[in-house]
Structures are given as structure tokens and as C-alpha cells.
């Protein structure tokens, strides 16, 4: 009953195919767009959007490992994101602008994130879910305060600006001649570093959630006592899931620091980033990994393009009563909120959940 041997694609996706033709198409389109982003959408701004999408795919997917697969509602995910970012930022600002500092900073950020996640897990996963969420909220607030207070180390509210290794500098030239009209500079190298890392981390998470370990996480999500009655120490599994998600978030943070060449509390630690992650996971579809990837695209695009789109709309409606004010670019959060309410109302299982339901 074990079925036919898996093909190479199944091996790469750990046997977890997106599930429907439309979803396959959407994800292929996303992969192709991100792969060719520097050539399809030239320009600093669109490259930054593509890189942010890659980073938030990892961040949202790692949150999904906790929330969607294990059923743990944590509000400390940005803290782990921040630990990775601060690790790289501090190492590059205080040591040297070399790859050694990048690796050391990322490793330190990941180690700290894993240690804190294990500590939170062992201390508080035995308490009821709602108390666990509150504890994570308190710890995350504490981390945010700490980051703004330790000015010598973190740069306080202003954050840290630093130099990155030469190949990632915008002034670096990979080739003297442009390829397909695009100059291959350090920005492009940075983008492809982020793209490759994000793709590898996403496939790794796909592998983990589809492993026997991932099955136990899903069993715990559905009914903890039943899982314990099968002999699984659920606290250990939940703590491991938390540590894994924290490590992934820290790596995403390290990539963010390399992209921005800056890190501060607003960029990686603020509560609005946490809300963004939640929205990505819920809009895309919890417990699917592919869902948060699509959710990340929707949200990052909305943040970057909703305002200009509204400005254009508002301008074209000039002369009408009320409408220009309604579509004023300053009101973009209102429309994003409305979008979220509509998505939750019409697609409670998220984009991926809805598509799979239609197909199945």
C-alpha cells in the first residue's frame, strides 16, 4: 500500500503538491516571476518588492508551521525575525563588512532565537493556549523595549546602518556589460542570494511538515490528548516546532538586514510586522505553507502598490463628490482592512483552502 516511487518533483515538494490546477498555475507564475524579477520588472523599487516578497514568504511560512500546523498562537514571531536581523546588523556594524561577520551574526541570531523559543516553550506551553499567547506578547514587547534601550549595541530607536560585503554593494559590478538590458550589480546579487535562500528554506519547511515529525504536529493541533495517548510527548514536539519556526524567522531577519543595509525596531520588531504576518497566513490559508506564500505576495504588493493605485484613482475621480476623498492614498489602510474582512468572510480557509475546496 506504499504506492509508486515518487518522481523528482514529488521529492522536491516532499509529496505535498499544491493540489489544484489553478493553484499550480499561480505558484508557478509566482516562482517564475521571482526567478526572473530583475529582468521582468527592472527598477530599484520593483526589485525591493520582489526581495521583500521572498523574505516574507519565509517569515509567513515559518509562522504557519506554528499556527497552522501545530495550533500554537504566538505573537513573538517578529521578535525572532528581529533577532536574526539584529544579529547580522550588529556583526556588520561592529566587526567588519565581511562574510565572516554575516555568518557569525546570522548564527548568533538563530542561536539566540532558538534558545529563547525553547525557553518560552518549556516554561509556558503547558499553560492554556490563551495564556501562552499573552506570554509571547509580553516577551515580544520586552524585546522591543530592550532593542530601543540598548543604544550602544542596537542603535536604539534610530537602528543601525552598516556596510555589507562588497559583492552585495550597489556599486559592485558582476559583469561589465548589461545582460538583457539589466546591469548585473550588487543589488541583483543581493536579490538572488535572498531568492535562493528563501526557496531553499521554503522547500526545507515543506519537507519538515510532511515528515513523520510534521504529522505529529498536525495530530497535536487536532487533539493533544489523543497524541499523548499514542505516546508522543507533546510539549517536546510543540517546543521543537517553536524552535524551528524561530530559527526560520531569524534567518528571514538576517536576509532582511542584508537587503536594507539597515535594521531598526520599526523594520523587524514592531507589532505592525506581526499583524502583517498574521494577515499573510490567514489570507493565504493556514496549515498549507503554499497559502502563506501567496498571502505574502498579496500583502507586500498591497503595501507597495495600493497607495499609488489609489492616488491615481482619486485623481481620475476629481470633480466627483466624496469619491476622491474616499480613495485618498492616505486611506489605504482602510481599504486594506476592508480587503481583509472580505477575504475572511468569503474565504475563511484562505486562498489555498478555497481553491482546494472547489477542486475537491
Amino acid at each position, binding site marked *: *500500500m506504499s504506492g509508486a516511487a515518487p518522481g523528482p518533483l514529488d521529492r522536491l515538494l516532499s509529496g505535498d503538491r499544491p493540489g489544484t490546477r489553478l493553484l499550480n498555475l499561480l505558484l508557478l507564475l509566482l516562482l517564475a516571476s521571482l526567478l526572473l524579477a530583475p529582468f521582468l520588472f527592472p527598477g530599484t523599487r520593483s526589485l525591493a518588492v520582489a526581495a521583500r516578497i521572498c523574505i516574507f514568504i519565509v517569515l509567513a511560512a515559518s509562522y504557519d508551521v506554528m499556527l497552522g500546523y501545530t495550533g500554537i498562537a504566538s505573537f513573538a514571531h517578529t521578535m525572532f525575525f528581529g533577532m536574526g536581523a539584529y544579529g547580522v546588523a550588529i556583526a556588520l556594524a561592529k566587526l567588519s563588512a565581511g562574510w565572516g561577520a554575516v555568518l557569525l551574526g546570522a548564527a548568533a541570531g538563530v542561536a539566540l532565537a532558538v534558545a529563547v523559543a525553547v525557553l518560552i516553550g518549556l516554561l509556558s506551553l503547558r499553560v492554556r493556549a490563551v495564556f501562552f499567547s499573552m506570554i509571547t506578547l509580553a516577551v515580544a514587547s520586552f524585546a522591543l523595549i530592550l532593542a530601543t534601550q540598548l543604544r550602544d549595541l542596537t542603535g536604539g530607536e534610530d537602528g543601525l546602518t552598516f556596510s555589507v560585503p562588497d559583492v552585495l554593494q550597489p556599486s559592485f559590478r558582476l559583469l561589465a556589460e548589461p545582460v538583457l538590458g539589466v546591469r548585473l550589480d550588487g543589488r541583483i546579487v543581493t536579490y538572488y542570494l535572498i531568492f535562493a535562500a528563501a526557496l531553499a528554506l521554503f522547500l526545507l519547511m515543506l519537507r519538515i511538515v510532511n515528515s513523520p515529525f510534521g504529522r505529529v504536529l498536525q495530530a497535536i493541533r*487536532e487533539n493533544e490528548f*489523543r497524541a499523548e495517548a499514542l505516546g508522543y510527548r507533546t510539549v517536546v514536539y510543540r517546543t521543537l516546532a517553536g524552535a524551528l519556526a524561530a530559527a526560520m524567522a531569524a534567518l528571514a531577519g538576517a536576509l532582511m538586514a542584508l537587503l536594507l543595509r539597515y535594521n531598526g525596531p520599526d523594520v523587524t520588531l514592531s507589532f505592525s510586522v506581526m499583524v502583517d504576518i498574521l494577515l499573510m497566513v490567514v489570507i493565504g490559508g493556514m496549515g498549507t505553507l503554499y497559502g502563506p506564500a501567496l498571502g505574502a505576495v498579496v500583502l507586500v504588493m498591497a503595501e507597495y502598490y495600493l497607495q499609488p493605485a489609489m492616488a491615481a484613482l482619486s485623481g481620475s475621480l476629481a470633480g466627483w463628490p466624496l469619491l476622491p476623498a474616499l480613495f485618498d492614498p492616505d486611506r489605504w489602510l482602510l481599504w486594506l482592512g476592508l480587503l481583509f474582512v472580505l477575504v475572511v468572510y468569503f474565504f475563511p480557509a484562505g486562498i489555498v483552502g478555497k481553491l482546494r475546496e472547489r477542486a475537491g
Partner: protein
Amino acid sequence: MSDGAALLELAGVHTHIGRYHILHGVDLAVRRGRLTMLLGRNGAGKTTTLRTIMGLWRPSAGEISFDGAAIGALATPDIARLGIAYVPESMGIFAQLTVRENLLLATGPQGFDEARLEEVLALFPALRQKWHSAAGSLSGGQKQMLAISRAIIEPRRLLIVDEPTKGLAPAVIQQLIDAFLRLKSTETTILLVEQNFHMARSVGDDVAVMDDGRIVHAGAMADLAADEALQQHLLGLSLASHQ
């Protein structure tokens, strides 16, 4: 196989849930290689007894021993690892996992023992057709079959099943009875909570009857099945009404 010796033994077990005193000194022996029925009215404490054995509730007094070792203070996963499989009431399946994944959860990292899997699927052939379906999409009877299959997919020393026939159609109940009879023939030790007296009479070797948090009768199932007055006294029913 020392027939007659108790594999699981409860002596004077009290359990409190919050401020409620549910079990008032339960004495119960589950003998090796035999199927012990635990009967009783709703609210008598049967499910609490099973959950206390599995470590969900800690006994506030009394001893629980498995194969001679005290297990009353162990955590649920450690109790399960001693070789005790528990099928909770209302089908303890994981609805969003497939039938295959539900069964894999109960195997070790090495996966299925193919011969054992074939034996289990021979007991419940319906599961074979639903192999890759989400367990939540199964019928009530199939869910129960899956829950029991998961409990026996690896050889266990004791199988504890809580009301497997609850809410099932008579034809499905008959299938379960057949399955338990075949399990019995492999000398598996089983503790079975049931309300369905027909099922209890068909499969039980020994019986214990609970009322108000205590064991009020223990003996051979055949004796209880033959004594209508005793049934009426203990369970408020007679066999004739449960044919």
C-alpha cells in the same frame, strides 16, 4: 502466558476532577489474554476510570499497576509507551490527516510492518478503499474502525477501548464484534467499556460493573449474561430488551 494473572490492576483508586469526587475506590483487575468488559450506566465513572489509567487525570489515592509496576504517577506518553493503546470515546481519529497518516502515527519511525498492516486491513477492509482520504470524511463506523486499527497496528500489550459502538448502526456493530472476536483469538488483552449489552455478551470473558464511582460487581461475563435478575439489579436492564 500466565492465564489468570492480572496485567492491569487498580486498587482503591480515587479520582477528583476539580472539586468533584468521581471515582470512590475502584478495584479492577484486567487479566492477561482476556477481554474484560467494563459496564455501567451513564455517569458511573467508566470513562474517568480509563482516563485515570491513561494518566489524563491523576488518582488522588490508590494504586494503578501494569505488569507489576506502578504507573499512577507516569505521564500519558510514558504510559502509552509501556504498550497500552487507548481508543477514546467518540473515535479518537485525526480528522484532517488521511487514513494512512492516522495509522502511521501509531507506528515507529520504520513505518508499517506490511504483514501486520495486511492483517489489520483484513479486519476492516473498508479502510483500504479510503486509504488516501481524510479521516474526517469517513462514516462513523469507518472512523471507529480506523481508531481501533490505529490502536492495534503495532503489537500492544493492552488495548483499552471506550464505547466503540456508540451511535453506530447494528450492521456496523456486528462488524466490530467480529473484529473483537478475531482480536481475542490472538490473545490480545483488552479492556472494553460498553453500553451495548449484546456486544458485551458476545465478546466479553470477564466483566466488571460500575456504579457511582465504584466497582459493584466483578466476575465472568457468561454468569452475568445468564442471570437476568442480576442484570436487572446491576444495570437496570434485561438481556431480552437488548437482543
